[in-house]
């Protein structure tokens, strides 16, 4: 398989007929224009209904959690509320970064800003790094959202699943970008004219975080800690398990998304908070298809896709791959 070109090289002002970027088309997974147009169609009503349901569910779980403070049910209620909260913020920010959730652009961007603020990643960086991830999925040195080189060691996985890598990277990016300093990788996938806007947005994010902390300190209020910071930190490992399931231990440097990406078995309850990202191969194949049409897309393609697995099997499989790679390959004949 040939390695795709980095974005700056792939942009072709000459407008040549052959586009050099993106995943290779796979004939059996290629839909006709009419079907695709139907699947790409946007809505406001469907995502608003889903958002309302999601917020009601989070409100109920939050109520259970707050009611459980001081009781023996505190820890399970905290984990349940934190996990669903973290998963929702991550998934909705991701979907809105594609701009496909709501037909109304203003609504999409508002939800994108709010969820990205809660997620901890500035909006332009989130969009550009994720665009590079879609162009170069699992291509080492090109995929901007591969959090660490593969094959990964056990220590790396433990640092990931506990959230240490995730929080460290996010804090580092917020700090550096607010100072106007960018890594070579970030400059590769971000157009130069967008960097000042990225700095401005990051400073705004930092200002909001600092303002929230200052107000909490001034009023001696622990509300933000109890309803946001603590549940988010406790729930992040569950969100990271879902994020990790999408690509960890899948094949690198292949243009076949079925080999580089993993879909999960759909679960209506989980997908309420995960915003149908269980259909992850489908999402990578057609990122313009909104989350609510992914089950229909899956119905069209499933005969040519790998059998999806549950989150426990996927995570267990990741550690199994690590085990096989680390021990069995080095075992004496």
């Amino acid at each position, binding site marked *: 398989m040939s390695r795709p070109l980095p974005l700056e090289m792939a942009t072709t002002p000459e*407008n*040549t007929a052959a586009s050099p*970027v*993106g995943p290779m088309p796979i004939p059996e997974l290629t839909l006709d224009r009419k079907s695709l147009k139907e699947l790409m169609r946007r809505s406001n009503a469907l995502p608003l209904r889903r958002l309302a349901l999601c917020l009601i569910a989070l409100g109920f779980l939050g109520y259970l959690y707050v009611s459980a403070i001081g009781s023996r049910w505190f820890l399970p209620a905290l984990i349940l509320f934190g996990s669903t909260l973290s998963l929702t913020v991550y998934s909705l920010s991701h979907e809105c970064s594609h701009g*496909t959730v709501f037909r109304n652009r203003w609504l999409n961007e508002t939800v994108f800003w709010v969820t990205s603020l809660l997620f901890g990643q500035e909006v332009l960086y989130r969009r550009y790094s994720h665009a590079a991830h*879609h*162009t170069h999925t699992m291509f080492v040195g090109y995929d901007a959202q591969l959090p660490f080189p593969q094959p990964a060691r056990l220590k790396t996985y433990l640092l990931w699943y506990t959230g240490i890598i995730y929080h460290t990277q996010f804090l580092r990016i917020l700090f550096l970008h607010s100072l106007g300093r960018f890594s070579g990788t970030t400059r590769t996938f971000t157009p130069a004219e*967008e960097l000042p806007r990225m700095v401005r947005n990051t400073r705004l994010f930092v200002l909001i975080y600092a303002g929230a902390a200052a107000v909490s300190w001034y009023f001696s209020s622990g509300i933000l800690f109890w309803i946001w910071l603590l549940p988010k930190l406790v729930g992040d490992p569950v969100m990271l398990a879902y994020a990790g399931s999408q690509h960890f231990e899948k094949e690198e440097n292949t243009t076949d998304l079925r080999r580089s990406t993993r879909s999960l078995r759909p679960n209506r309850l989980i997908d309420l908070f995960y915003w149908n990202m269980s259909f992850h191969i489908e999402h990578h194949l057609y*990122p313009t298809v909104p989350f609510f049409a992914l089950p229909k897309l899956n119905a069209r393609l499933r005969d040519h896709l790998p059998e999806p697995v549950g989150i426990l099997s996927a995570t267990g499989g990741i550690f199994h791959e690590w085990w096989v790679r680390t021990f069995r390959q080095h075992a004496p004949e």
Partner: protein
Amino acid sequence: METTHDWIRVCAATDIDPEDVLRFDFGGRAYAVFNAKSGFYATADLCTHGGAHLSDGLVMGDIIECPLHQGRFHIPTGQAKSPPACRKLRTYPIRIEDDVLYMSIGPQDGKA
């Protein structure tokens, strides 16, 4: 391929559904011809951000959304409307004559 002066015949106007786009290759280059909300337009086909074919994207009113990263352009002017698209898309004059669409690709692009 017929040419009338520097106007190139593209297709019949009825070949493009309302709010849809058609890819048109000429001289080794790709163009996108739109039946947008406010009329027919022609632009370069490759997205100025990542180089994907816009003719595979979604037309909404006068907006085209890139199929790969969902950057958006205003079709009549080629202006980038939403990241990750931030650079203008080249536009080309288009006219309809007897229900046939013609586009002018200009002296630079026209020399195939």
